[in-house]
């Protein structure tokens, strides 16, 4: 079942890809192959594969239980928020919060999670900024004005 849905999804995406490729402008100095052919080929191969997967689906994988799905959802949200907070808030605070939540998900003990958050945020900042010279700001513009 999983593979049939997956195959269908891929088929739709591949068709969309081919349709978008028809919109590519052709320059006036074009070669025999042009800018569209290779995307067409790639889209066509993907479409063929999608049909092959739908025709002969593999047995379903073991899908995660709702609980695991929830954990993955939380991790996803944490990573997304970290990604958008890194610029306005700087490294230290988002990194401490994100590491603490991830650590808590791995081992639900408040003390170790807090230690992981603080330790990783300050420790990694020191290593990445001063030993490796990465361009990280400790606090972002929103906090320092």
């Amino acid at each position, binding site marked *: 079942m999983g593979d049939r849905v997956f195959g269908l999804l891929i088929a739709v995406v591949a068709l969309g890809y081919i349709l978008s*490729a028809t919109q*590519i402008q052709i320059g006036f100095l074009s*070669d*025999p192959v042009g800018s569209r052919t290779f995307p067409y080929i790639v889209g066509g*191969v993907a479409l063929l594969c999608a049909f092959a*997967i739908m025709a002969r689906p593999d047995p379903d994988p073991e899908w995660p239980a709702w609980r695991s799905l929830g954990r*993955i959802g939380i991790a996803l949200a944490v*990573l997304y928020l970290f990604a958008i907070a890194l610029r306005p808030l700087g490294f230290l605070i988002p990194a401490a919060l994100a590491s603490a939540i991830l650590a808590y998900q791995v081992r639900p003990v408040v003390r170790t999670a807090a230690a992981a958050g603080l330790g*990783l945020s300050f420790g990694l900042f020191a290593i990445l900024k001063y030993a490796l010279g990465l361009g990280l700001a400790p606090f972002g513009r929103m906090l320092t004005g």
Partner: protein
Amino acid sequence: MELLAHLAQGFAVALTPTTLLLAVGGCFIGTIVGALPGLGPSNGVAILIPLAFSLGLDATEALVLMTSVYYGAMYGGRISSILLNIPGDEPALMTTLDGYPMARQGRAGDALVLSGVASFVGALLATVGLMLLAPLLARVAYLFGPPEYFALYMLAFCTLGGLASRNQAKSALAAAIGLGIAMIGLDNQTGIPRLTFGEMHLMDGVDFLVAIVGLFAVAEVFIYMENHGRETALGVALGRITVPVKDIVRCSWTMLRATGIGFFAGVLPGAGASLGSFLAYMAEKSAARDKESFGKGNPRGVAAPEAGNNAAAGGALVPMLTLGVPGSGTTAVLLALLLTLNITPGPLLFEERPEVVWGLMAALLIANFVLLVMNVPMVRLFVKILSVPPWLLLPGITMVSFSGIYSLSGSSFDLILMIAFGLLGYALRKLDVPTVPIILGILLGNNMEDSLRRAMVISDGDWTYLFSSGISIGLWAAAVAGFIAPMFLRNLLKRPGAGSG
């Protein structure tokens, strides 16, 4: 004699204090990366590439650092295979078969030392093989025109895809996904944007480091979150470490045989270290008179896969340096490093930048001796590092990957794209769609298209030109064979360690 002159030039580059320090540091980090379960060599190298850039290293230095990490990871993978029965990385899977039983018999120290020596033999001889073979292959590469390169890329996708999944359609799909992503951005030949959907950030295309770190490292976070608690590792106490001279002597032929097999598997584009260790183990088992003792702690079953996978790791550098086609997943990541450093692999690299090529090879020779010291007398240190708790490790790796990618562009867009690749990688892993062909597609897509278009310009649109030379016909034939053969060999190749892993 030409070789010795080149090598002397290489050592002049490699023996500077900075390069030496980078080689030693790379070996150390690499062994840790290899030893930690779940953080394989491709992952480790991908996460570290952005950090290597921020150090402001020149091309040779960056390459020495990352290949030392690569070699180190290959050595380190065996440590958790033997002690925890969890392969530290995929090629170390075969080492669990006899390594863990040896450890259970109280011979963990012997197994670690023996496999360390086997790794050294495999890696050292493969490095010598690389020095001999790469310049020859580079000369052959001069005969390659656009149609031959196009056929070579096909070969890489077919052999890699043929082995990566149990379903050929899924491997081919993975390659198509990668190639499709590579098309995004400005067309190399006309400068017209393609498939960017008006998004400014996509004009330059999708940065392959973003894709690699997403597909490997971020996907790993989601997989961990799902499997959490299910993988309980039964640790084995590490007793006194002695050197099992008798075993080493008895396994010396095994190591040499395995090195030969592994090197050959590595040189084949796309096949890589996992195949090397698998073939080496299988060959050793089928040649042995005491077949039943394999899987129950036979020292030869430890020496063969370790020599095989380290030899394959060296062999995989041959096609990457001479043809620009990586021989394995991790060399694909190393190719990403080369391309980002503006170094085009191929025959011209050997002519124009000999200091890079030979400096790298000399550094690899040195790295092998460093690794032998780290992995035999100092192995206890790495066993300690294995006990870093996951609640510290998982967020730590995540933070390092995010900071590395963020420092490349300073944009949240890349980070969000990376998370999207992580989700994609997670879903594809669940569906048994291999992710390495995607990486290869993103890396090689533009070159592949260019070679096709150039071939068509030369032949004025005649498609039969693609099959007009002996070399290209041979490559096409090998590609077809590489794609189809696994369908028949499936029963043989199916999950080699499934029963005991």
